[in-house]
């Protein structure tokens, strides 16, 4: 079979493109080297849908962000992905800079912007730190789970005929006439077009494809996660004034009820580690935004690596290799832009945006705990697995986890279950439920204990039976 498009890289951008192309009726395959989608930059970022006041006017970033954000409501509703426009404040003491941002927002076509004085800030953020006298309030800024969005985009695509292949290592690419022959360690794919949305792996893929490489740098961002029981009393995203290196250390509620504090911004290699200095930097900077942060409430730290290529996104047709679309340096606001990038790439490929008829709707995977009481009881009556809690911190039931394992994209990792259900994301960080989740995965997937992964290949959860290894 010859695919119309082969997408390399299943982050939120790759899955958005995959989803869109499937919906317009194309034959599409998506390959990723990881054991799940959204395991790179898409799993470790702030989870914010920006309104678009920050990027330089007329940049690709500005256009994609504003259009992308506008697409979020309908998209998340269709996919049943939780999304909330909670509003964001950029706070500081420099009125001129705030006004500049405001003006820039207007130029970018952002709606719902206003400037707040100290009293107005206090009404929205009672625990705002001293010295923050003025703020840009952006009403339409939102929060979403970036990985849950990517997973749902992939799942809906699969449901409608798209193919996702995981754990695929790209080995070779050659052209047979107009058709690409893409060889991985496991498979051979034929496709008319190739989209390189490999994120941190962009240049590696580009070299194999024979398309343009770019000078890319990796910027690591570390974060603290506070649990939902942390008494922050915070309802909006709070940024400091942006700097050249990014939007700075922010504090935000997540869509799941936790809080994120971060990120740092350090250029380096592509390793997601947390550091002593990085975490201390967050503590110092975040206290300039909120005064009631107690880092003893932190339940986790993580870091993510964003890929930077100059000031703007690179999204273009390859000039060196016809049929290849390059997507490089999709850092922030990549998540916000993803739905718009999908449309943009569709047009770059020369396809109309109109979706085909009779598309299937993704099943409702709403967690039991988020359903109305009546529906909870009905579901438990039908299947007692929904009455059996596996992750007690997040109140995730066996039924929720079995559902996640039966979603269209089949995974075998504990972190994959965490991204789909939040199991293991609470106060004990999986201390109580880790082995329970492992046992559910191996039963449902019909694999051995040792084949269950934490995340990617090689991260097997056990070495073997005791006394045998």
């Amino acid at each position, binding site marked *: 079979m010859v695919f119309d498009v082969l997408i390399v890289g299943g982050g939120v951008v790759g899955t958005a493109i995959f989803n869109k192309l499937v919906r317009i009726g194309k034959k599409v395959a998506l390959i990723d080297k990881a054991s799940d989608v959204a395991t790179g930059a898409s799993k470790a970022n702030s989870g914010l849908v920006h309104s678009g006041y920050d990027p330089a006017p007329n940049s690709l970033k500005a256009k994609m962000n504003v259009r992308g954000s506008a697409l979020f409501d309908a998209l998340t509703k269709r996919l049943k992905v939780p999304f909330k426009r909670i509003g964001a404040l950029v706070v500081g003491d420099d009125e001129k800079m705030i006004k500049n941002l405001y003006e820039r927002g207007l130029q970018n076509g952002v709606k719902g912007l206003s400037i707040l004085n100290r009293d107005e800030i206090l009404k929205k953020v009672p625990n705002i730190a001293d010295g923050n006298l003025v703020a840009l309030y952006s009403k339409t800024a939102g929060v979403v789970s970036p990985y849950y969005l990517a997973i749902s985009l992939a799942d809906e695509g699969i449901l409608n005929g798209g193919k996702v292949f995981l754990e695929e290592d790209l080995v070779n690419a050659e052209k047979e006439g107009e058709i690409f022959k893409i060889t991985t360690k496991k498979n051979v794919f034929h496709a008319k077009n190739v989209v390189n949305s490999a994120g941190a792996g962009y240049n590696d893929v580009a070299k194999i494809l024979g398309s343009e490489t770019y000078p890319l740098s990796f910027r690591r961002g570390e974060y603290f996660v506070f649990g939902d029981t942390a008494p922050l009393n915070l309802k909006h995203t709070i940024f400091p004034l942006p700097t050249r290196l990014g939007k700075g250390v922010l504090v935000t509620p997540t869509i799941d009820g936790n809080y994120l504090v971060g990120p740092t911004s350090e250029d380096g290699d592509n390793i997601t580690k*947390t550091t*002593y200095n990085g975490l201390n930097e967050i503590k110092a900077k975040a206290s300039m935004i909120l005064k009631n942060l107690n880092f003893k409430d932190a339940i986790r730290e*993580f870091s993510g690596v964003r890929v930077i290529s100059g000031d703007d996104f690179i999204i273009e047709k390859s000039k060196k290799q016809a049929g290849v679309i390059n997507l490089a340096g999709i850092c922030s606001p990549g998540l916000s832009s993803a739905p718009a990038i999908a449309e943009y790439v569709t047009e770059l490929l020369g396809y109309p945006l109109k979706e085909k008829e009779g598309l299937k709707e993704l099943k409702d995977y709403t967690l039991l705990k988020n359903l109305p009481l009546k529906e909870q009881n009905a579901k438990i009556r039908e299947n007692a697995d929904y009455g059996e*809690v596996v992750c007690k911190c997040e109140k995730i039931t066996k039924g929720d986890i079995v559902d996640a394992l039966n979603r269209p994209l089949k995974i075998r990792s504990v972190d994959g279950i965490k991204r789909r259900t939040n199991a293991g994301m*609470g*106060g004990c960080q999986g*201390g109580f439920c880790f082995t329970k989740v492992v046992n559910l995965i191996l039963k449902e997937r019909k694999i051995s204990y040792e084949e269950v992964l934490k995340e990617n290949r090689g991260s097997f*959860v056990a*070495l073997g039976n*005791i006394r045998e290894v």
Partner: protein
Amino acid sequence: MVTDVLVIGGGPAGMSSALSAGENGSKVLLVERDETLGGILNQCIHNGFGLHYFGEELTGPEFAHRFRKMVEREKNITVLTSALVTKLGENTATILCKNGVKEVKFKACVLSVGCKEKTAGNISLNGTRPMGILTAGTAQKMVNIDGKMVGKDVVILGSGDIGLIMARRLTLEGAKVHMVLEINSTSSGLKRNILQCLNDFNIPLLYNSTIFEVVGENRVEGVFYGQVDEKFNKIESTRKFLKCDAVILSVGLTPDLQLLPNIEKSKTSGLVVNEHYESEMPSIFTCGNALHVHDLVDNVALEGKEVGRYASLYAQGKLESGKTIKVLHSADFAYALPQTLFEGEGEVELKFRLKNKIVRKWIKVKSEGVEVGKRFVLAGVPGEMMTVKFSKNGVKNSVTLEVE
């Protein structure tokens, strides 16, 4: 559903308090989130349990089994397993179980939900987050319940009791436990565990030391470790690398009070309680590791027994209180429990932990400067929960614990 006493958590504290409340004549509903009663005892297959309570040495599952049998025989107790209490109010609780989401009305409640382990996130462990970083309890579950090996070259961070137990356990299963790193200058583990689990197997225990950074992408590949100064700052000149495939964390336990996020916690991170172990939330009693972390399950069971009786009396309207005596302590103590007593007659017991090691000192209980009780301590360490008894006859306003 309606009950006199709702007991939340079916570990040793919960089973013991359910038993004594039942024996005292109250109808009891005992709710356990796991499939069987016993709590963490079920995975503690080593011995050393029951010496005080049963007068013989048992394994954890044996200790749990004995209690389970007693609970089964007690007609006043209804047991509900695989059930999670998701909401707790003054006289009602919401339970999620295989029969649906149920409301339970109760007259008294014993919160005996135990504790949780501190995680890599809680201590901001630096480095990557590959597979192989496990809390000691999770590792114990994998090895003892699932029969799976968590690593062959192991480093243990923290010298809490479960970590020490796992050092021995993994050694017996053929792993090389390279070292136990303890950031403090003393261990929070029991002396007997250091002797039997580390010394007997020549496993070094390095004080004032910690992991600087975990290395590894998919599984743990090694750690950078070294010494810290008195403020726990890393001394970079002592930085060394050790190849290993597992990092087991035993860095502390915290009462697991997720059910009551907005109630003020004490120094133990448990609830503040009076002489009857009743919290500041009327009708809610608490005991076991949900109140403060114990060293011995025997003490948990004894505390549960006492608190179950109080909860039962409360449910029956027979529990009398009185004017409050505040329990205070000097800076030598990490905490003292309960936080308040009632004026009246009779002997009471205070439970406490020391902040630092003491040798040949008196622990004194004073009321308005006058000594009302004391005990001599030959050698006391923070790792050991201690008690002091005294008569409260005539004591008013407050008592203070001091070291002399």
